[in-house]
Every structure is written in C-alpha cells, then in structure tokens.
C-alpha cells in the first residue's frame, strides 16, 4: 500500500515534540524531506517553513535532498580511526572514483560519519542500511561488489 505524507502526519499530533520524529519518519519513508512535503509539515504543525527547514537541515538522520541510490558511510570515530578506517575511505574513493563528502554525484555518496557505538567491532562501514564490521582496506572490493 502506498504511504502518503498525509498518512504519516496523521500518526502524530501537531505538537512541537512530534516535529522531529515526523521529519525523521518522512525522510526514512521517502528518502528525504522534499520542498513540498516540508511545506505540508509546516502547515500541519502551524510553523513557518523556515523553522521546519532549520530543524530538518540540522540532523544527520533527516535528509533534505534527494539521495543517491548508493550511500556508503564509513565511521571515523576514534576507535575506527586507529584501526585504519581512513585507508578504507581512500580505497573506496579510488575504486569508485569519487570523493568523500561530494554531495553532487547523483549515483553514489561516500560519507564520513561520527561514531555509531559499534566500536568493539570496528572499523565500521554502512552501505545503504547494511552494516559491515571489521572492514579492511583489502576487503573493500568484495563488499562493493555486492552493490555494483
């Protein structure tokens, strides 16, 4: 069944404390919070659009832009950093000919992220929503093959 924005909004009372959860949900379902949807959210919560955008653009788990199909995240937390997560980033950059942090590639995005709290199993990489633990630079090729 198709989930519409209206259906999502109706799950939440139009109270301030529900704004962030609603935005998170919209972003999770549609991939991002579009201009039109933000307008509807603002209307539903009786807030100025600027306010909705201000909140939406602040948080990592709310996207405000359409996302590429392939999103690769590599943890750069202290634990992952000392176990060579930077080399993993470099390896992915070389293999896919992309740059970490480049927002303008329509197909793939490589993001360096903060700690996910999986430090015991690091270095950690996340592709779309699948988590890879104890990743090594040498193992990057094999992981990427699953997705390309």
């Amino acid at each position, binding site marked *: 069944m198709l989930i519409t924005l209206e259906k999502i909004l109706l799950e939440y009372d139009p109270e*301030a*404390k*529900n*704004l*962030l*959860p609603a*935005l*998170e949900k919209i972003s999770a379902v549609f991939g991002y919070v579009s201009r039109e949807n933000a307008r509807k959210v603002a209307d539903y*919560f009786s*807030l100025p659009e600027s306010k909705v955008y*201000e*909140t939406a653009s*602040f*948080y*990592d*788990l*709310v996207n405000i832009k359409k996302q590429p199909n392939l999103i690769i995240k590599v943890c*750069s*937390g*202290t*634990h*992952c*950093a*000392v176990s*060579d*997560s*930077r080399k993993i980033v470099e390896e992915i950059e070389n293999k896919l000919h992309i740059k970490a942090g480049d927002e303008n590639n329509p197909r793939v995005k490589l993001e*360096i992220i*903060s*700690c*996910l*709290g*999986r*430090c*015991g199993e690091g270095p950690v990489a996340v592709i779309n929503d699948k988590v890879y633990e104890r990743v090594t630079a040498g193992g990057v090729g094999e992981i990427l093959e699953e997705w390309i």
Partner: protein
Amino acid sequence: MQNSTKIITQHWNDINPLKIEDYLNVGGYKALHRFVKKMSPRQAIEEIKKSGLCGRGGAGYPTGQKLEMVGVSGATEKYFICNLDESEPGTYKDRMLVDYDPHLLIEGVIIVALSVGAYKAYIYINGNYKKQKDILEIALAQAREKNFWGAGILGSEYDLEIEIFSGAGAYICGEETALINSIEGNRGEPKLRPPYPTDAGLFGKPTAVNNAETIANIPWIISQGGEKYAKIGAACSPGTKLYILGGTVKNPGVVEAPTGITIRELIYDFGGGLPEGKDFWFAQIGGASGKLVVENELDIPLTFSRDCPIPLGSGAVLVVDKSVDIHDLILSWTGFFRRESCGKCVPCREGTFRLDEIAGRLKDGKISDRDKQAVYDILWTLNNTTFCPLGKFAATAFSDAISKLKILGD
C-alpha cells in the same frame, strides 16, 4: 576484592533482556516496590544524595542535588529525561546496558521520575540505536503490563507516562539543553543558561536530565541504601563505572569497575594488556573529547572530581600503540568536531573548521609556521570563549597531542 563489585552488570548474560520474568527472578523491580510502599520521594532523593552518586555522562554533577532541585520545585508540571543519546566516539556502554538489562534502566527511570514528581518521563535514545529502541519498547510494554508504570503504579497514587524519543543524529544533543531543544522540535543547539533546566527545562518546566548509566545505579541505591553505595570506589565520586576498553588491548569491551581505579589497572588487569609485539604509546580517556595519558601518568586514579587531572568523561579508554599513525587520530578528532559543532557561536563554528583544515595539512606534511600560530590561537579561543563546553572538548585532545606527543615539534 573490592574490584569485583558489580552493580550495573551483575546480571548481564544471566538474564534474557526480552523477558521481564528473568529480571524479576533476580530481584528486579524490588527497589520500585520498596520506593512505592516504604519511601517518600523526599526520602528517595535523600538516599541518592547520601550515596554520593554523580552524573556518569561526563560532567560528574552530584545526581542527588540535581534531583532535589527539581523535586522541591512547586511546579505541577515537571519532566524527567533519561539521556541515552550516547554519541561520544568510542563509547557504547549505554547501548550495552539496554542490550543486556533494559529493565534495570527502566526501573531506575520510574523511581527517579516519581521521586522528582514528574508525571512524564522521556528516554532520549541515540537515533542510530534502532535495535535498542525496539528492546526498550518491548521492555516498557512488559513493565506497563505489570503496572510498574502508567496509572496508579502498584496500587499507589503514583502516575507516570514514559515515552521513548529517538534522536536524529547529532552529537551535541547529548548536552542537556540541546537535547531539550531537540525534543521541542528545534535545532539541537545548546541554550543559554541560566535558566537551568532544573528551573526551566523542557517546555519551560523544571526538568531533570540524567545519563542512562547514572539511572541504572538507582535501583541498587534504593534497595541497598545510599551509605553502602558511598563506600564503593573513590570517596570523592563513589560507585562503580562502566569503562569501555578499546584500541590496542587484548580484551576490548565494556567492564564495570569502581571509580578511583587507575588507568594501568584498566588496561593491564581488565584489558589484558597490549597484544604481543605492540608498544604502548598513549591512551585517550573519555572519547574524542578526552585527555591523553602517557606512560608516566598511568597510575593516576580516575574519578569525577574536579581535581582529578584526567577527567573520566564517558569512561572510554582508547589504547594507542606506537604503530598507529597519529595523524589519522587527529583527523578523527578534528573532523568529528567540525561535523558536530552546532554552528551557533563564532569560535566553535569557525575554529573547528580551521583546526580540521590545518590537521589535513599536518598529515600531508605541509604545515606552515602561520598554521602553527593559528593552531595555538584557535585552541585558546575554543578553551576560553565558546558558548557551550563543546568548544573546550574540541580543544582538549589536540592540546594534549601538542604538549605530550609534540606533534608540532618542541
């Protein structure tokens, strides 16, 4: 041996976290019963004050005092928030707490919320902890069924609603006023103090915000008494603490040990020391915002006291050996704070950006004298002029790397 005292982890691995019966079988929710039947909220707070328990999130503020400030307020509407927004790099103790013993946390939340007179409690959980949110939801439903929370708790006149609020990925939301902003639907920026949250917090009402690990100590304190708790660990900040060992150690993971333990004991007794062939270089205590300790400081006992030269912070212990490229770690710190600064005040927004930029040049070996002077200036302004403590955090490790590891030369 005192080191074997376990308060939070005592039932880890013995019980199924998804079964409330398991928790009840090991004496779970007895503290809640005791609180409801035999204690007044004031007595409970008194007991917590006696225990000397202080905040486990890093700041080490005395928990009893904080709860009392909210408790004595005559406001009819008050809130209690359990801070489970763990996002300090290298820290996953609160996640483990939910994974292994969610009811312990919930019991603590209920007791504390009721003792400050709140009708509504939030558990603010890190947005990346999806599995843990599910566990908590199941556990909360079980506890509600047993009438441990909801209306007329255990036949008393106590009412309490508990709601899980999922964060959306922002480190700064671990700071209590930023956390409150985020529940209120705002950007997760720290707010100006005063007013303090204990006076005017969530939606302007008196609010107590406590770290999840702090809360997990409460059931023990209520059942066994504050005085007994105060005898554990260091006198200045008693109790046990969850330490997260990582980096170059044989046995990484979360361990519970009393406060006042030395870093050497943690690394060598609990962590099993470094693997063969690796030489200890330094350790970082408390995540990305933590201080660095070198060999001759390993015997400093870790406490929450202001006088402790090495603040315990989140309890993360990262052991770094001599084969690690220090520049990778520096870039991890600077990149982290550049991403996670909220952007509100000038020194932090611009300073963390510049520091990361210069760290990049440092790694490439292109650092100039101008850069070096800039580093000192930025660290100084981060330390002295930022809006919230994040600025200081951003400067700590880098400053230590300069003074103790001589990354910029002598």
